[in-house]
């Protein structure tokens, strides 16, 4: 389950939706990761661009892995501005057993950071500045240079 929101995420609302959609009573484990905007570098918040068609494709790969293991994977992300202490990203894995859920959330969040087509900007003094130094080149970058 993947959803892009135009506002900061409401943790209770998103988690309730996911919990209610857990496919059957056999999922005994539900692990979530919540990404909160922290106060650093004098920013007023962060802002995000998302290339939806490719995020969907990227997410599909993880859906397949989850399905193969009778599990389910969830992700919500905000496009646009998110203020300090607000939530921009929530990921989750529900599974019959805890091991798959715990291990998969780790791999999923790391792969998300490295490969999901999402761009981050600092909001500072009314400006939106690309967080280039904190961004990761997608594997295969530089092909056309």
């Amino acid at each position, binding site marked *: 389950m993947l959803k892009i929101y135009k506002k900061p995420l409401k943790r209770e609302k998103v988690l309730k939706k996911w919990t209610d959609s857990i496919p059957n009573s056999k999922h005994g484990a539900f692990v979530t990761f919540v*990404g909160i905007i922290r106060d650093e570098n004098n920013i007023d918040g962060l802002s*995000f*661009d*998302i*290339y939806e*068609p*490719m995020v969907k*494709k990227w997410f599909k790969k993880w859906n397949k892995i989850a399905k193969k293991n009778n599990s389910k994977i969830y992700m919500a*992300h905000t496009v646009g501005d998110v203020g300090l202490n607000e939530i*921009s*990203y929530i990921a989750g894995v529900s599974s019959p057993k805890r091991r798959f859920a715990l291990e998969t959330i780790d791999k999923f*969040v790391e792969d*998300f*950071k*490295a*490969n*999901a*087509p*999402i*761009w*981050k*900007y600092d909001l500072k003094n009314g400006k939106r500045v*690309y*967080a*280039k130094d*904190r*961004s*990761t*080149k*997608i*594997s*295969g*970058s*530089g*092909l*056309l*240079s």
Partner: protein
Amino acid sequence: MIKVEFLGPIGKKPMTVKAKDLKSLSKILKENKEIKKWLKISAVAVNGEIVKDLKTKLQRGDTVSLLPPVCGG
């Protein structure tokens, strides 16, 4: 014609070019100074799939996307 789109912080409007493969597209894009500096750090997708081979052929109607370094979360 091939559509080329520049994602995220590159902040350029899409353009259409004539190119038979990625190698010839590379030549065309390098002529533009603004674009050239992004090429080194950008990944390339053809119709939404990341590609890693410069010999990748292009066909009329294909969309090529340039993806600069990412950071979600």
